[in-house]
């Protein structure tokens, strides 16, 4: 291989008074921020939708199922364009919102459909008796969910939730399409400016791997801390 490496590229000035490495680090920050906020949106809506898919009321269940099908069957990129180009055009109140917020919601709602599916599966994997015991104790339905069902369900779905948390880091890369200055946009633009694509891409790829690994470790730690002795997944 006669390739001439030039790692100095990261120390070059971008022309804006900062070096490429600084730009890359701030891009990493954007990637993590978009993913983290999207994750919060996804957990909130995913839990809500997952729960209403298991309640006795049929209209609520249908609403929950429709939500999941809608956000699962349209590509994330198309959803981002809808949030960015279509919704502000149709809803004047949304016009002033920065694209960053729109992307967070796009990513969050997209991911919420997958989390809703996991929450539903987690709830339905619990023995019926748990809910019945809760109700027999005189808990209301929301109380039974809050104190009996959900604490168990969340623990059960931690492993799939871990892979979803790693997915959202990867999926946040699609934000480049609406000019969020995250890692992929950094990679594309600095590749063009410096023509040192291989070094730049290696840097970005390494950051993605590091991030995914960190998320994985954090989730594994949580999993270990909250596990219920003698119950599902407690082995190992």
């Amino acid at each position, binding site marked *: 291989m006669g390739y001439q490496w030039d790692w100095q590229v990261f120390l070059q000035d971008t022309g804006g008074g900062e070096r490429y490495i600084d730009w890359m680090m701030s891009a990493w920050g954007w990637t993590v921020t978009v993913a983290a906020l999207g994750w919060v949106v996804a957990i909130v809506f995913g839990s809500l939708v997952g729960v209403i898919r298991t309640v006795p009321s049929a209209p609520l269940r249908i609403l929950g199922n429709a939500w999941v099908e809608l956000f699962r*069957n349209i*590509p994330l990129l198309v959803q981002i364009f809808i949030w960015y180009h279509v919704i502000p055009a149709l809803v004047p109140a949304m016009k002033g919102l920065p694209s960053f917020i729109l992307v967070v919601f796009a990513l969050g709602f997209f991911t919420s459909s997958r989390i809703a599916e996991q929450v539903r599966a987690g709830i339905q994997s619990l023995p019926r008796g748990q809910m019945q015991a809760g109700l027999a104790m005189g808990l209301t339905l929301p109380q039974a969910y809050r104190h009996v069902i959900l604490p168990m369900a969340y623990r059960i779905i931690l492993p799939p939730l871990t892979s979803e948390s790693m997915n959202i880091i990867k999926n946040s890369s699609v934000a480049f399409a609406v000019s969020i200055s995250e890692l*992929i946009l950094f990679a594309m633009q600095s590749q063009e400016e410096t023509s040192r694509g291989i070094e730049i891409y290696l840097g970005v*790829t390494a950051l993605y791997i590091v991030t995914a690994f960190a998320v994985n470790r954090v989730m594994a730690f949580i999993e270990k801390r909250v596990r219920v002795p003698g119950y599902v997944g407690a082995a190992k």
Partner: protein
Amino acid sequence: MSSLDYSIFTWELMRGFVMTGLAFSVQLTLVAMFGGILLGTLLALMRLSGLKLLELPARIYVDGLRSIPLVMVILWVYLLMPLILGRPIGKELSAFVTFTIFEAAYYSEIMRAGIQSIPRGQVQAGQAMGLTYGQNMRHVILPQAFRNMLPVLLTQTIVLFQDTSLVYAIGAYDLLHGFETLGKNYGRSVETYLAAALVYFVICFSLSTVVKRLQRKIAIIR
């Protein structure tokens, strides 16, 4: 609420802008599906071979690709292919290569689960019959693994079809690009993005309904 104008969705314009894009998206999906399942099965066999020399590269390949975003892989291939081949390659060809090697990582995990789900007795029965490793795989294990995993493989293919929209990163002309170009040319971006979402939804939703039905059918027979 600004008024929407659907008059641009004529047969003529759809054929001119959108159909070429749709054809490419479908082609890309099919090529990556067949190529990906083939390469993925090979990788799965390597990982289950019990030979370190085969296991390790397969694991690095699969875990490596699964931990970086598809867009990153799209950019990598588009950057590296011309350097390796010594001549520029088109966006479309680059996309075919990218999606095949990327999806292989995901299909390989599915095939691995499929192979592992086959009861040990089946493997042993094959061996007792005097089948070689290859024969056993070809006639006993893989057909069953493939069949058991068919719904999951197809679900992955639906995800793959959605992911083809990411060729946006290198500007290849796919279904989304078709709608986008139509919208830009006629100043009707809002309508064309909505139409794109609708088309993707209809395709993916109907396919996943078919897969669900198939799943029930397979589940009953087994």
